């Protein structure tokens, strides 16, 4: 048992942190200044888009390593549809989609987003009313499930006519999907275990995004508390502010511990156990994210309530992460059901 990153994994994190720094968003106005197409090409060049490419059935990078790659980008508030792209790739790879399509995605020539149920708790059926496009920026199509198929059969839908929504997260816009022509079955239906593994991966990525946003947010808030002077002293010397920051740290470190395990479990444990680890991670991360998002804004005082400030960008991104692939109620119920089943079997 050695639950620490390897030197290679540390290096991956550092590489991604350096790249993420070039995409950092420090205010809503800066969102427009990011060259998103160039950033996407860079992601392809770094190999991030193809991290889950299979070689002999084995992914090039573990799900844990994927979280190491996306956390710093989330921390920078990079406005990129990366989570959706990685999850679309994963689902297509699991379904056995053809190599040309996967290569197009890995090399950034084509993007595919995800079609989510209206409550954002999971993939939508292709005919679901009110389905929402997640991470569809620059995508010509989205991935959904074929309705009434009995299994998880991925289907690709064209996104023509989608209407942007005024969602909470300004860095990852959502859109309403308008049903149209051109649904195309892709690959074969996933076995239940494979789809459970995909669902666990999806939850782990949502949690990793949340952890990334909050961890950098806490670092910035702490820096502010060290330099903002009131009553002739830094506000960070007041115990009320210190304890608020310590509270955030405990919530975030707990979230990070649970997320690392859930991400590792995606590849390393039986599918049911991987999903159970995901339930735990999201059950902790969702409320932790809500609380820490509020506290982040609180540390900055009045300035943290203004439109121009970055604090609400973080709180907003966490709002989406909290709901993405299920909020705490969803996952706590799943835990309760699992524990019932285990008890009744004993």
């Amino acid at each position, binding site marked *: *048992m*050695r*639950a*620490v*990153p*390897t030197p290679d*994994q540390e290096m991956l994190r550092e590489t991604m942190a350096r790249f993420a720094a070039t995409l950092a968003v420090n205010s809503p106005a800066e969102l427009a200044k990011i060259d998103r197409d160039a950033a996407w090409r860079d992601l392809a060049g770094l190999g991030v888009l193809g991290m889950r490419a299979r070689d002999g059935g084995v992914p090039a990078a*573990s799900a*844990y390593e994927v979280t190491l790659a996306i956390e710093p980008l989330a921390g920078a508030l990079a406005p990129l549809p990366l989570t959706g792209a990685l999850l679309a790739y994963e689902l297509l790879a699991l379904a056995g989609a053809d190599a040309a399509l996967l290569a197009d995605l890995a090399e950034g020539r084509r993007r595919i987003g995800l079609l989510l149920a209206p409550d954002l708790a999971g993939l939508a059926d292709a005919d679901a009313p009110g389905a929402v496009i997640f991470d569809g920026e620059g995508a010509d199509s989205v991935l959904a499930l074929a309705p009434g198929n009995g299994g998880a059969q991925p289907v690709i839908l064209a996104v023509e006519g989608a209407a942007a929504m005024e969602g909470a997260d300004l860095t990852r816009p959502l859109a309403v999907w308008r049903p149209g022509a051109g649904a195309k079955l892709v690959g074969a239906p996933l076995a239940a275990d494979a789809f459970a593994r995909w669902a666990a991966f999806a939850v782990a990525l949502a949690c990793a995004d949340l952890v990334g946003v909050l961890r950098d947010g*806490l670092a910035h808030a*702490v820096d502010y*508390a*060290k330099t903002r002077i009131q009553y002739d*002293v*830094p506000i*960070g*010397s007041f*115990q009320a*502010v*210190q*304890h608020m*920051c*310590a*509270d955030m*740290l*405990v919530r975030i*470190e*707990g979230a990070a*511990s*649970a997320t*690392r*395990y859930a991400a*590792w*479990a995606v590849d*390393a444990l039986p599918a049911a156990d991987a999903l159970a680890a995901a339930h*735990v991670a999201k*059950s*902790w991360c969702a409320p932790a994210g809500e609380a820490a998002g509020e506290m982040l804004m609180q540390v900055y005082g009045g300035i943290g309530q203004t439109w121009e400030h970055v604090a609400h960008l973080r709180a907003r991104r966490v709002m989406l992460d909290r709901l993405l692939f299920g909020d*705490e*109620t969803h996952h*706590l*119920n799943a*835990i*309760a059901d699992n*524990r*019932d089943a285990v*008890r009744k079997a004993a």
Partner: protein
Amino acid sequence: MDYLENAEEAAFRMGVRAWLAENAPKDWRARYPTEDDLARLHREWQRTLYDGGYVGLSWPVDYGGRGLSATYEAILNDELGKADTPRISFHNYLGRAIFTYGTEAQKQRFLPPMLRGEIQWCQGFSEPGAGSDLASLRTSAVLDGDHYVVNGQKMWTSGAQHADWCILLVRTDRDAPKHKGITCLLAPVNQPGITVRPIHISDGSPETCEMFFDDVRVPVTQRIGDPGAGWRIAMTVLAFERGPADVGLIATFQTALAKLETYAEERAIDRDPQIRQAIARTYVIGEVLRLNVVEQLSLRNAGRPPGPDGSVARLLLTQAEQALRSLEFRLRAADAVSGRAPDVLANYLRSRTISIFGGTSEIQKNILAGQVLGLPR
């Protein structure tokens, strides 16, 4: 990154489990009803474990240990917790003071008998006027030839009524800054001038003690480290207080939670959505604690000594245990309040001490704010 036990670790776990099935005391709560009985049992049990090769796993072979990584301590504690055995001395972390700062003669004298259970320790740090502000302690030690003469009072010396030795923080230099004038001494508990009195906590149990020192003579050879080094020694030792032992608490926690679920099912309240969510939420806190502790242990095995970020695990532990006992109390409130379930009331009241003993939650947050986040004083 790997959370799975390797072949040796897994084999060790199986070995512990088989050994416990043979050797763990059965039905011990009924057979050892009084507190004195339990103290005797703890000593016997530690000796049995020692003879089985299961004490001091991460201690060096030279001092009676096994020289293994902290992971093995965690596995052992997990199995002890799952098997619901009596506890063994939770004070062995105090031995870290002797191991890290003691002379070779002191290590040989104290560490092997500590692991065998022949020396039980208690911790004489806090005082009536030095709780959270430990460095303001006033118990004095004045040099008289080759002895120190100790006068003063210690508080929260848990286990002192059954301990053989006490590790003491005393003030040896009144003129030095308060963190610099503290020295660490080792004193036998049963000697002239020392009086031990129980302190009963809110559930009525003699959970801890106070100790009075009246011209107690301690040979200079029983000083650990240099004069004035006491604060640094205390901080090192307290960082070791948490870690592998927490894994045992987590196993106990999960057992208690499962009992609560069975109770909810028997009372047909297990379908109540609020109760289901509350139980699942409590389970989640325990899991997050477990995962955080596993990572801390892995860091320790990778060569990083325990640091101030251990306060994260401490606060998670507090949250987990208090959430569990609050939930238990909530489900059985009428029984607890009306005296039909005294154990539920006691568990609840005892859980309130967790955010106090070993450093209050407020102190833990001060540590995180100051030493981890670097916020100014």
